[in-house]
């Protein structure tokens, strides 16, 4: 089962994504954390998410890049948070980001095939004008492409608005 959860900043998408994992009843819960901590603000964000997850039985696995090389236990419930960080780490990597799009997509497909449930959290970033520098625009296009490709494969797709899940594909929960 593959579920894509999107939404804007502060929309409540993470909390909803976590609830999908806990509601699945699967006991082996893996949290694939993609954010690289490099300043006080990112440390605060990570801490906020850690507290939100506390007591929900997740094992946190750092995965800022290289999802396609990551092995997950068969049948586990996996929460990937989030696609835009993973894609940024691949795209803006010091090695040049060549082939990053295909690596991310292959990683999602492999984890989804092995896990019992994969919930991918992504971001809606393309609804606020597109007046950005070429590198950011290319990254945005890549993210939109990944969102489309994963949504096409997903069993369910949700957009979270003000904490309310709007079902775009699959059964409404």
């Amino acid at each position, binding site marked *: 089962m593959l579920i894509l959860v999107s*939404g*804007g*900043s*502060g*929309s*409540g998408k993470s909390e909803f994504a976590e609830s999908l994992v806990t509601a699945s009843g699967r006991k082996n819960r893996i949290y694939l954390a993609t954010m690289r901590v490099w300043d006080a*603000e990112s440390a605060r964000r990570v801490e906020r998410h850690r507290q939100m997850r506390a007591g929900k039985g997740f094992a946190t696995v750092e995965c800022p890049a290289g999802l396609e090389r990551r092995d997950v236990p068969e049948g586990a419930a996996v929460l990937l948070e989030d696609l835009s960080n993973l894609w940024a780490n691949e795209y803006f990597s010091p090695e040049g980001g060549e082939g990053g799009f295909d690596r991310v997509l292959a990683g999602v497909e492999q984890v989804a095939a092995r896990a019992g449930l994969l919930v991918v959290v992504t971001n*809606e*970033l*393309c*609804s*606020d*004008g597109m007046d*950005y520098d070429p590198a*950011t625009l290319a990254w*945005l296009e890549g993210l939109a492409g990944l969102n489309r490709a994963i949504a096409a494969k997903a069993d369910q797709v949700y957009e979270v*608005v*003000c*904490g*309310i899940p*709007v079902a775009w594909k699959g059964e409404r929960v």
Partner: protein
Amino acid sequence: MILIIGGAGQGKLDYVLRKTGYGPDQVAHTPEEAKQKPVFDGLEQWPHLDEGELLAANPEIILICDEVGCGVVPVDPAQRAWREAVGRLCCRLAARAGRVERVFCGLPMTLKGETSWN
């Protein structure tokens, strides 16, 4: 309380005025005014609103807020914090609202609340 959200320029206030028959002079633009008026527009300018105080004074108010979190995360830390605060405020308000609608290109979509209004 009813919460109306949507991107800038989508027709949220027009929709509310059309639906309710209220005029522009019945629309509040500050939290103080909002205690006395039936509609509060521009909530996104007040990310640190004390919603408990407002709703105690005016439990049936219609709140209108821009959705501001759907773009690239801004470089400016204050802009980032503002977007985040507006988003969290809307999550809290949506949880308390009897009705939540999202206006897109002038068209309303009900996100919460089964019964019709006005």
